[in-house]
């Protein structure tokens, strides 16, 4: 009986626990400093977080949004955690990827990171997880900044842990760009705070409308700065220059985790501000960003895809493809009718799943062959059939073939574009899929049809601890491509709710 009661009390405090658990376990890992313990505890925590975000999402679907005031101070005086369907969905994405990559970490981290540094590495990983979850859960504009910095600082370190010296350089460049982005965000929040006097996102939204009359200019400038700052963080074209190197040189475990989560959480923040804060206060017709975002997204989709075609390293190719896929998401946000927005939100998750799968497969290739250069992995499919089959599944999902997750999101985005009367955009999306066919096709050709390269003649399937996450991710890619009731329902509910907050 008392156990039930305790569980009930805990579920009441779930929002706080989701953020604090990784924080505490990170400090525990750093205090104990034993390699295997660090991995075991991180894995345990990641799976606990995964299950608690499932519980949280179910609870929110049944009972509606949850507000949790930290320190017992009611908002706007204290910091508030506001979890609605959308944030719970993003929490679930982050924590599920965080949990899925943990078994994968065991062997790759052993290989990539010196034994003495492993506990600290896992500590930093947990802090990164904590920062990302905190960004998705908090309802306070400045608290977002604090968690953004926790996640960014840990990301810089994680990237710098790469084997090659270029990793240091990309980490440094990311540090410069990321800090500029965060500072621009703080400037924007500061301007909003000066004219509203509040930091709580929902309180700002309420007070923004009345203060627009007197302070039109600062509000618009604040909005521009917030959007510019977040765009740097989410690598919106043409602010994407940091991303390909960062993903290509980081340890493969880090790349999988970051590619699936880091930019997605930034997109979540963008959506939060776009719909729940500015959209709720200012009629959209007065926000002149829609056309700009559509143009930039189309440019991202085409330019990044074309660059991806000419890349020689698979990791960089996939990184450029990430920039293109982010373009799809921002496109859906800009069209912002119900279908397109649902498509954008599903694509957050779907792209997370398929990019994690692709990078996991590339990580396995690097683990066994030692390189991911196209020129030296010819005929690898005969040596690593399961890994390459998983890669193929991820590849056709990137292209958007039916029965994969990639198709679902593109379908919603396309229907959204058509509903909005934007036929050319729907056609452009189809054309861009053809470019994806080229770059995925290049890899498939080399791997399946070229003679076996001498470098990978000794290669074999990766160890089971790496193979299981790869297989799970490829099953997810197909399962959520066929059985859409789960993802699409939640996403459309989230989209409905976001659009419901917008002032008409």
């Amino acid at each position, binding site marked *: 009986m008392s156990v039930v009661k305790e569980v009930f009390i805990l579920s009441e405090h779930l929002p706080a626990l989701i953020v604090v658990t990784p924080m505490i376990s990170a400090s525990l890992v750093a205090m104990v400093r034993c390699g295997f313990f660090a991995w075991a505890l991180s894995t345990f925590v990641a799976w606990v977080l995964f299950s608690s975000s499932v519980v949280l999402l179910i609870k929110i679907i049944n009972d509606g949004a949850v507000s949790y005031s930290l320190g017992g101070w009611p908002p706007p005086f204290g910091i508030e955690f506001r979890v609605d369907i959308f944030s719970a969905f993003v929490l679930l994405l982050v924590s599920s990827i965080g949990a899925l990559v943990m078994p994968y970490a065991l062997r790759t981290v052993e290989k990539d990171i010196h034994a003495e540094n492993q506990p600290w590495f896992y500590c930093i990983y947990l802090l990164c997880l904590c920062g990302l979850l905190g960004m998705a859960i908090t309802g306070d504009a*400045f608290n977002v*900044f*604090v968690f953004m*910095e926790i996640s960014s*600082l840990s990301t*810089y*370190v994680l990237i*710098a842990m790469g084997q090659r*010296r*270029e990793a*240091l*350089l990309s*980490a*440094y460049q990311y*540090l*410069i760009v990321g*800090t*500029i982005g*965060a*500072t621009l965000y*703080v*400037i924007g929040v*500061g*301007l909003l*705070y*000066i004219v509203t006097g509040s*930091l709580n996102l929902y309180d700002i939204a309420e007070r923004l409308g009345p203060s627009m009359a007197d302070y039109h200019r600062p509000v618009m400038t604040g909005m521009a700065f917030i959007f510019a700052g977040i765009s740097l963080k989410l690598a919106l074209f043409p602010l994407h220059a940091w991303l390909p190197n960062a993903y290509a040189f980081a340890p493969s475990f880090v790349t999988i985790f970051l590619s699936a989560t880091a930019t997605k959480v930034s997109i979540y923040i963008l959506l939060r501000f776009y719909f729940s804060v500015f959209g709720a206060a200012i009629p959209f017709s007065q926000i002149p960003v829609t056309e700009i975002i559509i143009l930039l997204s189309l440019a991202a989709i085409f330019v990044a895809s074309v660059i991806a075609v000419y890349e020689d390293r698979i990791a960089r190719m996939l990184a450029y493809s990430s920039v293109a896929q982010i373009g799809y998401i921002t496109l859906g946000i800009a069209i912002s009718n119900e279908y397109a927005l649902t498509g954008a939100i599903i694509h957050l998750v779907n792209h997370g799943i398929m990019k994690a799968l692709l990078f996991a497969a590339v990580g396995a290739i690097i683990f066994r062959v030692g390189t991911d250069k196209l*020129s030296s992995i010819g005929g690898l499919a005969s040596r690593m059939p399961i890994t390459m089959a998983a890669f193929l599944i991820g590849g056709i999902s990137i292209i958007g073939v039916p029965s994969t997750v990639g198709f679902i999101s593109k379908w919603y985005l396309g229907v959204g574009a058509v509903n909005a009367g934007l036929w050319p955009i729907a056609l452009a999306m189809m054309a861009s899929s053809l470019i994806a066919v080229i770059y995925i096709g290049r890899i498939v050709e080399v791997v399946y049809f070229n003679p076996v390269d001498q470098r990978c003649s000794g290669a074999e399937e990766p160890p089971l601890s790496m193979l299981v996450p790869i297989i799970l991710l490829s099953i997810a890619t197909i399962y959520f491509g066929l059985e859409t009731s789960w993802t699409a329902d939640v996403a459309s509910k989230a989209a409905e709710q976001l659009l419901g907050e917008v002032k008409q």
Partner: protein
Amino acid sequence: MQLFETIALHYNYAVTIFLMVLGLYIVMVCGNMIKKLVGLALFQTSVYLLYISPAKIIGGTAPILDSKFSLYSNPLPHVLMLTAIVVGVGTLALGLALVVRINEAYGTIEEDEILKRRSEENLNTEKVEKV
């Protein structure tokens, strides 16, 4: 005198913007990694002025309550900027640690020199592969 006062009232924001712009310029133009971080620090520091200036009330006092005063400046921006200072020094330390490691790995901290070497290396490896 009136003119002086108007200028003085707008001076805070003017200087804030100047510092921001200059900091950003140093970050973007300077090839030296240490100086780049100095520019970044300037950019971050200018935000303190943006937050603290509007918190001030002329004739008010610091927000430490006492029966002798009744007008206090706004304490909330002060708290936010304490956090920002901490974040700033964290970023700086991390950036400098990266610079030290880059210097060990490449033997220089000038960005353009590193890029030049990298392109030379690329040429060399291509030659090797062709042979």
